[in-house]
């Protein structure tokens, strides 16, 4: 695996970074970086760390000596600890807490609950903003724990950006990927088709039955996409060869769709193959709609989607 950390890779311009990944040799990791500046979304960091921990022999991980001044950011986020590399970078802890969540590996349900409890003070969030962020982290990481079958669990990181007043979150796993998970219940031939289904409310890989199982409703990703959509934010999901990107909504009135392809979006189904799933999301704290308003929208579309699917299965009269 070869990864180049570019000068800029955020959700809006993540495509070149993903296209440039070289995933041909998963047993080693070579990291190169832009010489002048490295400014990357936590999704990118989580991906690098997620690959790093799968490589048991640290000598198979190489990272060129970083020259960019922003290399301290990578150190502070804990990347070199995950890669087991001595970066020679020393940082002074000016801010004891900071407004970021360093790279964190979560492998079980109890650790996730503990992590969420401790997370809010790290980001200095007020309750209005803490709610949606905790919601997103819980649902994304539980998806990994329940569906990815990865022994390494979920790798998560987040960062608050003062200038834009946005919290950016990235969660990566190196599990079986969405196509295989959804494929347990639905026939899917491509990764993009699987991603599309996974984003629809009420679709889960655990059953085809409407209403889900006693443990899975198939609504987690739909809720998360909805939070991004109503707040005019990006949301990216990448699994296998495909990526779906929710683009910022241009209309004033929030409108949710059960089918993610009806949202303003872009896709790419010819990316280097990622074994597992990666999700990146931005949450603008300026625009955070009241969570309660969002729930009204979700309630409407969620039930409509079930009714539409049921009606689609109705027997039709044969008129001869």
């Amino acid at each position, binding site marked *: 695996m070869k990864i180049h950390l570019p000068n800029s890779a955020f959700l809006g311009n993540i495509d070149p970074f993903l296209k440039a990944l070289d995933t041909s040799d998963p047993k080693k990791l070579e990291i190169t970086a832009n010489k002048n500046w490295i400014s990357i979304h936590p999704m990118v960091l989580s991906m690098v760390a997620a690959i790093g921990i799968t490589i048991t022999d640290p000598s198979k991980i190489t990272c060129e000596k970083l020259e960019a001044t922003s290399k301290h950011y990578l150190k502070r986020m804990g990347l070199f600890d995950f890669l087991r590399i001595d970066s020679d970078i020393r940082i002074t802890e000016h801010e004891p807490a900071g407004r970021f969540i360093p790279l964190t590996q979560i492998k079980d349900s109890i650790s996730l609950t503990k992590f969420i409890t401790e997370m809010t003070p790290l980001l200095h969030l007020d309750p209005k903003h803490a709610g949606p962020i905790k919601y997103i982290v819980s649902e994304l990481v539980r998806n990994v724990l329940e569906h990815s079958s990865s022994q390494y669990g979920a790798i998560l990181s987040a960062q608050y950006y003062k200038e834009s007043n946005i919290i950016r979150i990235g969660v990566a796993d190196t599990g079986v990927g969405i196509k295989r998970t959804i494929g347990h219940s639905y026939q899917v031939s491509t990764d993009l088709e699987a991603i599309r289904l996974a984003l629809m409310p009420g679709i889960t890989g655990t059953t085809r039955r409407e209403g*889900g199982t006693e443990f899975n*409703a198939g609504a987690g990703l739909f809720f998360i996409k909805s939070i991004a959509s109503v707040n005019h934010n990006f949301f990216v999901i990448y699994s296998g060869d495909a990526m779906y990107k929710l683009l910022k909504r241009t209309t004033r009135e929030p409108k949710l769709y059960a089918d993610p392809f009806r949202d303003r979006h872009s896709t790419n189904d010819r990316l280097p193959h990622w074994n597992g799933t990666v999700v990146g999301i931005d949450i603008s704290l300026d625009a955070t709609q009241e*969570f*309660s308003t969002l729930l009204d929208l979700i309630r409407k579309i969620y039930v409509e989607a079930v009714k539409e699917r049921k009606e689609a299965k109705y027997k039709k009269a044969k008129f001869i």
Partner: protein
Amino acid sequence: MIHIHLFPKTGSFAENKDIARDIRIHSIIPALENNQEVILDFEKIDSVTQSFVHALISDLIRKYGSDVLDRINFKSCNESIQKIINIVIDYMQASA
């Protein structure tokens, strides 16, 4: 009637589905089987996930039908929690 206080088990953010399932199997179902009514008390809980509520009650609606909702009382729910509970209930009834 049994009164189940969720906060001691879930904390202020109820998101752990394993705990939800545990409450359903070990507290709610035995009470319903004994023809008791159930109070699910959300006092001190600020927020819940849809997944948590689904794991807590969806199987009750599937198993006993929507009439089971006449025997379950949701207490001290803030506006968002009420909405999430309603989403799950609507969804399960639409799916029936």
